[in-house]
């Protein structure tokens, strides 16, 4: 678990400026046929991106895709502190905006695809319960019952924002026993049976196999998340990075996404 260690803002700004200058220089060079592509992605994309990385490496021989997964907010903080990366895929548009305003997006790519990144997937919340549903959870309102121990995402992380939207829309007030640091931590607590229910993404339930059961609820679509992806200003392989985004937006990409429980725009 990374202990917080923020850096001085001036240094970050300098680094961002230096990286911008670097990309400006490399724009005139020949596109690199091979190299390493570093992709930072929200934890909920773990399985999809791992599958697509194999496909990408087959299509671009000599290329290596390095994947790093964590909470979107943590990744955004890393990128804005100068972490070297080519592509960022976030679990919500707010976090992408933090990066667009901070370290910045690759200007040429952003001019073509939008200054806030390109939305490639959507995700909706589901109630996750341990196998057998011991607390007999039926819908969102069941979670408001004090005898049902519930784990939710902390409001500071994207899945927490989606949770707040869903409970507000349903007019339900849930008092959780814990506010977890990311959605997989909620899933773990449900799978271990430490809580009776948790709110996670449909994709997390698909990924958990039989470890948890999923329960849909009316209005869950209203609390959906848009997943944007963007090529970062710090990239030294802008063409390769753009190819990754294209693969994600292609039919191959949406096929893998749909299999994992995502919706596609």
């Amino acid at each position, binding site marked *: *678990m990374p202990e*917080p*260690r*923020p850096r001085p803002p001036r240094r970050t700004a300098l680094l961002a400026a230096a990286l911008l200058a670097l990309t400006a220089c490399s724009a005139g060079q020949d596109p690199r046929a091979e190299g390493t592509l570093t992709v930072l992605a929200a934890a909920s994309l773990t399985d999809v991106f791992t599958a697509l990385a194999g496909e990408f490496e087959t299509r671009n021989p000599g290329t290596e895709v390095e994947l790093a997964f964590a909470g979107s907010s943590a990744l955004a903080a890393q990128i804005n502190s100068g972490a070297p990366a080519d592509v960022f895929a976030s679990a919500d548009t707010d976090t992408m905006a933090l990066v667009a305003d901070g370290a910045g997006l690759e200007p040429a790519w952003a001019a073509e695809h939008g200054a806030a990144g390109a939305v490639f997937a959507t995700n909706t919340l589901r109630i996750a319960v341990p196998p057998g549903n011991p607390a007999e959870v039926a819908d969102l309102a069941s979670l408001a019952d004090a005898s049902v121990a519930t784990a939710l995402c*902390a409001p500071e992380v994207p899945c927490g924002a989606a949770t707040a939207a869903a409970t507000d829309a349903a007019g339900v007030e849930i008092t959780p026993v*814990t506010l977890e640091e990311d959605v997989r931590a909620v899933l773990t607590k449900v799978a*271990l049976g430490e809580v009776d229910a948790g709110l996670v993404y449909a994709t997390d339930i698909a990924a958990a196999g039989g470890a948890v059961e999923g329960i849909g609820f009316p209005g869950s679509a209203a609390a959906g998340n848009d997943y944007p992806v963007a090529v970062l200003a710090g990239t030294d392989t802008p063409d390769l990075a753009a190819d990754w985004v294209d693969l994600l937006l292609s039919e191959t990409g949406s096929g893998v996404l749909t299999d994992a429980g995502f919706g596609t725009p």
Partner: protein
Amino acid sequence: MTGESAPPARRGLRARRGRPPWILLLPALVGIAFLALPLAGLLLRAPWTTMGARLTEPEVLSALWLSLSTATAATALSLLLGVPLAWLLARTGFPGRRLLRALVTVPLVIPPVVGGVALLLSLGRNGLIGRHLDAWFGLTLPFTTAAVVIAQVFVAMPFLVVSVEGALRGADRRYEEAAATLGADRTTVFARITLPAVLPGIGAGAALCWARALGEFGATITFAGNFPGTTQTMPLAVYMALQRDPEAAVVLSLILLLVSLAVLVGLRGRWA
């Protein structure tokens, strides 16, 4: 060795012929720089003007209070269990003692998050022991303040045990032997001779233990979860603040740092 009780004289001597050799001084200075640099980063980045306002926020105050009280409770519990454990390791011989000593250092080696998972698997609602606690007493530990203390004891007690065991091994045993030949039983020897002799070691170990408990993050968030007022200690509050508002995270870190330094320096002065 010369003039321990007269610092001015000692300083004079050192200036003339006792200058520290470069081979020790140079790495020591690099060491200081290495430890101080991240702290300097924190201090430079700090928005000092907002610190006063943060200190009055009820959430910050409750996290700070929770941190101080749980770390203190964890230290008390560690003293109660850890000092006898250190005595057992240092003063008795029994088969498997080496294995036991290795076991004591396990929490120092494993990542705290893994420690948290291990605590869930043993004391959680479906855990080895936790299952029975739930069935027999209706007692569930995870997501309670008690779980915060348990996570801290698990991670921090080894520091106390290792320190106290070292102090016990370094202590002069002739006094204990003399007391024993004069008819004192082992409990009396421990309470009247051993304990006072290693008190500074226990104090240092307790301070180390308290500091480690105060900074505990991984095992706490995994085993006790994160909820303001019950389980959200300062390190957890810092981590959560970092997700959205890095400046707030810096201020919270500094508050924790200053309070813990004040306590440690204050205690140090009393013991010296």
